[in-house]
Each structure stands twice: as C-alpha cells, then as structure tokens.
C-alpha cells in the first residue's frame, strides 16, 4: 500500500508561446509521501504543480493520477479526478463573496452532492481542526493572512482529497503567521496525507519531507533526502541556491 504510485509524471514539457518553461520532467509520488519542491524564482515550480491537476495543460508528456493519464481524459472525467486532489495557493484565493463556512461547503454540495446538513457538519469539524471554528460566519476579508490560509487548507480538505498540492503557502504571510500554517500542514503530513509542497521553509522540509526536489531551468536537477539536499547538495546550481537561502536566514 505504501508503494502505490499516486502521481507519475513522464517527459512532461510545457511551453508558453516560445518559452520552454518545463523541458523534461519525470517523477513519482507514492502514497503517503511528502515531496518538497524548491528552486529559484522562474524555475517553473508553480507551473509544474499546476500541471499536476491540469490547471495548466501540458504541451507534451504524461501526468498520471492513480494510473489515469490526465492529459487524455474528457473534461467530465477531469473534474472527477480533480476533486480528488486539493490545492492551496500562495494568495489563499478564498471566495470573498461567501462566509468561511460557505467557502468550505460549496464544493462538497455542488461537486460531491452532499446534503447541506452533512456539508456543514464536515465543514465545522474541519474548521475546528485548523482552530478556526469561531470564524465560521465571518467573511474572508475580516481574517488575517494566516487564518485565511488555514481556511483555504480546510476548504481543500473538505473534498476529502487523496493528494494535497501546496504552492508556496506561507510566502505571502507575515513572518509571525507562518508557524500556524506550517503546524496545520505538519499535522496533515503526520496523518499520512500525500503532499507535494513548493516551499522554501527548510525547517518544515527537514521535519516532514521524504524527498526534496530541486528545480531549475525547466528540469528537476536533483532529488535527495532533506538532510542531503540542505547539507550536501551535489548539483552546482543547487549548491548555489541553497547557499543563498541559508545565507539569507
């Protein structure tokens, strides 16, 4: 069971017009694994993550989720597969026109056809889990960044996904709020959630990641355990990059 391949990427490439953003990406994420993706700005980390749930359509290559190649399914099938992957964005992207509770209830009701009562029960339980039960009826704009991001995680979890994708979930936050969000993610990892996280939080990567992937120039240049990646990077570009982020702390 632990060895089940949840995501498999083969020869993935992505062009925006003339620019090759992803050139030849290969990789496998197994059930329960936590993968951290690091790399310089513009390396294509976000693009890679967005290709995993087809928010961005790959130019060529395969993206297999649970054995199905997402690049060759109907849009109806794609919706079915997407609901099994949660995504959390750098800028939270909560729906500002709904209360926190409604943000969590919308997809379960509309996509999973859950009853209103059941959706509300799950939503409240999830908000409790991220420590924001008392904010159920608040609008997103009245929450702090850290609270908004915790709500966004709860919203993705409300669909009961098999994989969670995080794109720099803490980089838009004030430093004092980073901890509360990482804590929620850490718990999630401890519960065995399969996660792909684009992040530069070394502490987080060291404590929960099974593997760290270093991306640059449209390739994954190195994959190592967190300790190896941060202490003894082999690739020159990775050395350079890690030196910079350690230097900046």
């Amino acid at each position: 069971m632990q060895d089940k391949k949840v995501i498999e990427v083969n020869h993935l490439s992505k062009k925006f017009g003339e620019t090759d953003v992803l050139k030849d990406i290969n990789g496998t994420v197994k059930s329960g694994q936590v993968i951290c993706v690091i790399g310089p700005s513009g390396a294509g980390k976000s693009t890679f993550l967005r290709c995993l749930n087809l928010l961005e359509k790959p130019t060529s290559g395969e993206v297999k989720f649970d054995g199905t190649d997402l690049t060759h399914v109907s849009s109806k099938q794609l919706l079915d597969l997407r609901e099994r992957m949660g995504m959390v964005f750098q800028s939270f992207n909560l729906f500002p026109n709904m209360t926190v509770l409604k943000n969590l209830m919308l997809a379960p009701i509309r996509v999973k056809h859950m009853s209103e009562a059941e959706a509300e029960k799950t939503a409240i339980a999830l908000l409790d889990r991220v420590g924001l039960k008392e904010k159920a009826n608040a609008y997103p704009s009245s929450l702090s960044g850290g609270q908004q991001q915790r709500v966004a995680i709860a919203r993705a979890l409300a669909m009961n996904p098999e994989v969670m994708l995080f794109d720099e979930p803490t980089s838009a936050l004030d430093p004092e709020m980073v901890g509360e969000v990482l804590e929620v993610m850490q718990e999630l990892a401890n519960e065995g959630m399969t996660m792909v996280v684009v992040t530069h939080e070394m502490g987080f990567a060291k404590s929960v990641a099974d593997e760290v992937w270093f991306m640059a120039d449209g390739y994954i240049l190195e994959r190592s355990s967190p300790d190896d990646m941060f202490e003894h990077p082999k690739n020159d570009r990775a050395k350079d990059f890690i030196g910079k982020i350690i230097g900046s702390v």
Partner: protein
Amino acid sequence: MKKSFKAIIQAIIVIMALLTVAAWHTSNAAAADTSLQRVKQRGELIVVTSPDYPPYEFMVNENGKSKMVGMDIDVAKKVAKDLHVKLVMKSMNFDSLLVAIQTGKADMAIGGINPTNERRQSVDFSKIYYSGGQSFLINSKDVNKYKSAKNLKGATIGAQTGTLQYGLAKKRIPNSTVKGMDKSTDLVLALKTNKIDALGIEKPTAEAYVKNDPTLKMISSGYNLNKNDVGAAMAFKKGSGSLVNAVNKSVDQIQKKHLTDKYLAAAGKYMKVNTVNTSMFHYWTYFAKGVEYTLLISLVSTFFGVVLGVILALMRFSKQKWVRGLAISYTEFIRGTPLMVQVMFVYFGIGVVINIPALISGMIAVSLNSGAYVAEIIRGGINSVATGQTEAAESLGLTKRDMMQYVVLPQAFRNIWPALGNEFISLIKESSIVSIIGVTDLIYQLNIVRADTYRGVIPIFVAMVLYFIMTFALTRILNHYEGKMKHAG
C-alpha cells in the same frame, strides 16, 4: 483575429438580410382586399391619431379623467357607428401615423391629414371630410410688420415636420428659412420666444390658439391651393378599397348634414374646459401616469436588459466560435444603431409578423438595447474577477457553470453594481424615446399637457423636476445598497 472579424461581418449581413425580408413582407402584405371584412369580423375599428392638435384632436381633463376629444374623434366615432363596430383609438406621433396604417397597427389614421399627391403614392384616402385652409400664426406685436403672408418674404417660418405646411412654406414663401419641429406646442413656444417669425398651421388650429392666447394673431396664408392641399381626409393602407368605400358613405353624410360645424363647436367647449384651470396641479394625474410608465419601462427593461446582458456576456466566453460571433455581432449592431430606430423597428417592423402593443414593443426595444450595453459592463465585471478565484474553483472540481454562478458572477456584480446603477438611471432618461410610438411615458404626457393648456414652458419644468426626483432618489437607493454590499465583502 481576422477570422472572427469575418464572422462578425457575416452575422451582420445575415441580420440585414432578415430585416430586408421583413421590410419586403411589409410592402407586399396586401394581396386581396379584405380590409372591410377584417374590421367587421373583429368588430372593432382601430384608429390612430396624434392628440396634440386642437381642435382636431386633443386630450381633455374632465374631473381628473383624461379623454381624447375633438372634431376628428367625432368623425371617427360616426364612421365606427355607421360600420356597426366599436371604435378603438390609439395615439402616436404625427410622423408615425401613416407608418402605423401601412404596417397594420391600425385600420385608419385621422388627424387633419391632407391627402396630397405624394401621400397618395403610399396610402389610400377617404373623401375629404373637412376643408380648413392654411394660415400663419404670428406674435401680436408683429401685426404691423406682417400684415399679410406677402410680408413673410425672407422670414423664418416654423412648421410641423412631415406636414403639408412645411412643404408649402418651403416652396411658396420666397427666401424663407423653414424650421421643422415634431410638436405644434413646441412651434408655438418657438414663435413666442422669437425663434421663428411665423408658424404655418391649419386655420382651425390657429383659431384655437388665438382664442386662448392674446399674444398671438392669425393671418391668412394667401396660398392658392387645390382642394387636396387644404382638406382633411382619413388615411388607409393601400389596397383598402372596400373599407374606403364604406367610410366614404359616412363622409357623404357628414358633408351633407354639415356635421363638422357641430363637432367643432363641441371641441371649442372642451378647449374651454381645458383652459379654465391651467395650473399644473390640475394635471397631476397626467404627470403621475407619465412617471408610472417611465418607471415601469425602465424597471422592466433594466431587469430584462440584465438577463440578456448576462447571457450575451457568457456567450462571449463560450468555446464555440459562432456563439461568440453571434454575441459580438449583436452587441456591435445594437450599439451602432440609435435607440429611436430600434423602437420603431420593433413596433412597426416586427409588428408586421406579430402584433405587439406599443408599451410591450417599447419595453422589448429598450431591453434589447440595454442588454447590449449591460453585456459589456458584465463582461468587464467578469474580467475584473481575479484569476486566482477561477483557479481555486477549478481545483475544487467545480464545473464551469457552478464556477460562474457561485464564484465569478456574484463578485462581478459587486464590482459593476455602480455601473449597472448608472445604466438604470440613464434608462429612465433614454426610455423617453418610446413616446414616439405613443407609449404614455412622462415625455408623452408632457406634450399632452402642453397641448391642452397652451402653456409651453411650465410643463417642461415640471417634467424636468420629476425626472430629477426619480434619478436622484434612485442614485440614493443604489448608493445605500452599494454601501451594504461593501460591508458584506
């Protein structure tokens, strides 16, 4: 880009072709003459007139109730009675009367219409039931300057657009400048404020004005005219021989018994009723009705305009190229043509295929027009919603439809609420154009009051204040809700 441009051109050509077919249908509709038979079968004679022309036809305010009276109305009554059918009166701009019968909106038009040769090309006429003669109205202070029509050489002369007086002044008064306006009330006002030197007008109407306004005087036109150019006749759609023959029997009786004298006397009495009390309060029911219709049209049109606007805006985001092309062509076409033409097209043009009452036609035209503008506003609103929102919705597995309905449109509407409010407010003002097809909105009622009271300016002022109250109150209400919506966000 080039391809979609081509698609737009194609769509516009298709629309034009449809319009041409509709127009052709209009001009060829009458094959066999069933005009009399149709009226008899229906049991109703539908007569259209422009009731702002005393003593021919005008509105009278009797015990707070408004009613159409005048010599022509009595003539129409007699005709209907002789045909043993009910009389149904419709009102419209004078300019639109002949179009109304050509497009089958009415069986007959009456309104001091002179059966000139030009007009005979496009409609049939009854025999002449009344010969009034032409005259000029001038300001009393000018009586010495303009002793007779000969002195009008080089003067500025006003006349109702589309009337015989207009053409005559142009042709027969040397070196004159002729100014045309829609309403005789406006022309009288122009005369009194010295914008024109004289006003070419039918003699009975001129007499009515002189009786009610000491600052005006009448001089004879001095035109040597053929009977067709001075007489008034009823107009019918071409090929209505059977109906015309039947109506001519009534005209014969009217002539023989000199009934028009009696009718004119009665009209004179009504005109006195009107001028007994020309205070605007006395006419408040007129204005109230005008406000009611103006608000009704604006409200209904805003509602359907928004519905249509949403549909058109969503079409612009469709995957199908032809759907996008259709929405673009529609928007471009509507925005490229005046609302007035659209109103007339819906009422007279579409009316050939299905008969739609004036009020509904007005609402349809204004809604169709507003939809095109609202579509652009909504499209802007949709584009203003951050892409992160649609990505979040997509990542949750929401369908495009759910995403639009629950996430994008609510936010778009909040962003465009002020723009939509402005659209609604401008509709209150722009919808006044429907008065040309006889919808009793505020502008229409304003003209009735002006015709009835012989007071040119005060009713305009009242209407202006009423429009302002409506738009101002609305702005306040909209601001209130805008504030509330901000609060919720």
